[in-house]
């Protein structure tokens, strides 16, 4: 099922849009320029087909049936786990727990590991650019344990203040939780360095990889982090499936968080004993078709190559940055030196929400709002931004459509000379 690698050799760009059926669907009579990939990515035919084929050919429950289909479905499910292991370069597939997505993965860590490992007076260190899903689970944990949540400040360019980080790290710090790539700014955080410093201080490290795994090669052994979470749907896979990597020596001692079928070893009314990892954390019938779809998505992405995808998106990011800054009154929020394909911006005199509506009538899909990062918006003193976020199928044509639609918006609002 390997997709042929098509390159527009002159520009060094990929040419993959034809693999994604939805991209040929006109929106409001216009060619769709889908630039809301930070919210979710579109799905290649390979993924759509894999889910459909699973239900048509392979459906059964896993880990329990003696019949052939059940074993077959189990094999497909466990093959998906192996694909995730490969994607993240984890040492072993038992270190991969399937979840509904990044949010559930972080909640799992907070609930299971957090309640076991944290006590009153301990500190959890996150950053000022976290998504709400890497803030609120820790607040809940702090309420339960009496631990304290602290945040590393963000600089004006949207980078982590590493000096402040070193100062904030201390003997009370038990966990550092950081986004690999900021969903609102595009900043790629130095997760290797962050992890090294945290480990020196005796803290564990969780990386929120939701915005990273589809856009660059990720190696959890190289980062040396303890937890790594991501969502399938931002990786060209289905919604409702994601994964959590946990270093084996930590995972094996973590208590269950949800009880039910599939996560037990024995059950009696006096006492139950729990399954080995990772099944201990996968109570109930999981999203089997979702895992099959995710597997197909990982194969698709790896067949193109994450380095090639990163290079493609970097070219479009540079081009998009130039196009935006060529417009009057445009201000980029997030200008870190090391950035992924996210353009967060403000246009003088036009609220992001109005921009979103006007661009939509031009077939340009972007996100407008606080991007589930309210503390970050407060830090920059803004209610929200307009955000164009890139994926492997985006083209120079999409960037041109974005710039043209922004010009139209400025004309409509009479701000083209501001």
């Amino acid at each position, binding site marked *: 099922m390997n997709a042929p690698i098509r390159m527009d050799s002159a520009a060094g760009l990929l040419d993959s849009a034809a693999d994604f059926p939805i991209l040929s669907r006109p929106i409001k009579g*216009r060619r769709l320029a889908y630039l809301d990939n930070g919210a979710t990515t579109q799905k290649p035919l390979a993924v759509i087909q894999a889910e459909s084929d699973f239900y048509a050919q392979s459906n059964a429950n896993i880990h329990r049936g003696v019949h052939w289909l059940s074993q077959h479905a189990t094999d497909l499910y466990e093959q998906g786990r192996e694909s995730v292991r490969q994607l993240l370069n984890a040492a072993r597939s038992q270190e991969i727990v399937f979840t509904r997505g990044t949010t559930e993965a972080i909640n799992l860590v907070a609930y299971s590991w957090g309640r076991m490992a944290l006590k009153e007076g301990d500190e959890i260190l996150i950053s000022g650019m976290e998504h709400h899903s890497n803030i609120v689970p820790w607040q809940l944990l702090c309420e339960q344990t009496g631990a304290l949540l602290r945040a590393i400040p963000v600089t004006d360019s949207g980078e982590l203040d590493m000096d402040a980080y070193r100062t904030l790290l201390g003997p009370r710090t038990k966990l550092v939780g950081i986004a690999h790539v900021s969903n609102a700014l595009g900043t790629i955080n130095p997760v290797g360095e962050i992890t090294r410093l945290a480990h020196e201080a005796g803290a564990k490290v969780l990386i929120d990889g939701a915005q990273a795994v589809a856009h660059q090669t990720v190696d959890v052994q190289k980062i040396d982090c303890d937890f790594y979470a991501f969502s399938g749907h931002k990786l060209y896979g289905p919604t409702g499936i994601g994964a959590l990597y946990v270093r084996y020596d930590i995972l094996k001692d973590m208590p269950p968080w949800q009880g039910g079928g599939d996560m037990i070893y024995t059950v009696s009314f006096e006492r139950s004993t729990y399954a080995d990892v990772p099944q201990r954390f996968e109570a109930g019938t999981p999203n089997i078709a979702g895992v099959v779809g995710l597997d197909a998505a990982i194969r698709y992405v790896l067949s193109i190559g994450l380095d090639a995808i990163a290079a493609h998106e970097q070219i479009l990011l540079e081009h998009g940055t130039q196009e935006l800054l060529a417009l009057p009154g445009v201000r980029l929020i997030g200008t870190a030196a090391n950035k992924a394909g996210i353009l967060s911006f403000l246009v003088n005199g*036009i609220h*992001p929400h*109005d921009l*979103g509506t*006007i661009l939509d009538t031009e077939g340009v899909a972007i996100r407008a709002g606080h991007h589930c990062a309210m503390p970050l918006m407060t830090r920059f003193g803004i*209610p929200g931004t307009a955000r164009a976020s890139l994926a492997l199928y985006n083209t120079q044509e999409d960037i041109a459509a974005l710039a043209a639609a922004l010009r139209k918006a400025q004309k*409509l609002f*009479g701000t083209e000379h501001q």
Partner: protein
Amino acid sequence: MSDHHSDLRELYQEVIFDHNRHPRNFHAMKDASHTADGHNPLCGDQLTVYARIEDGVVQEASFVGHGCAISTASASLMTEAVKGQPVDQVEALFRDMHAMLTEAHPEERDFGKLEVLSGVREFPARVKCATLAWHTLHNAIAQARDTARTE
């Protein structure tokens, strides 16, 4: 021009731009008898609506806050429309505005200047922008202590 572009023109009429650039009654009110905060958590729009109600009549109405062109213009137009109106008529207008923005145009009602907001109906994602100020005023009149929500 496609239909979608005429819809866009319907949404962003000159009156909307005018009230967005120069919102009327855009100030806090020290002697307000009624006040409430409104917040749209989806887009971050935030406003406070003030009213001075005497003898069952809205003598003055004003607002402060930040939001998109639609929410700012709607708030501005609202403060103009309700000034001098008896409270029960303001409440009836709130109900009719809500119907006009979300369902169908109430036939018997002449909305006057507020008619410019009717284009919002073609943009379901933006209805909450237009209704936020009205919900907030409604809460202020009801003396609701909670922040108004469009959810």
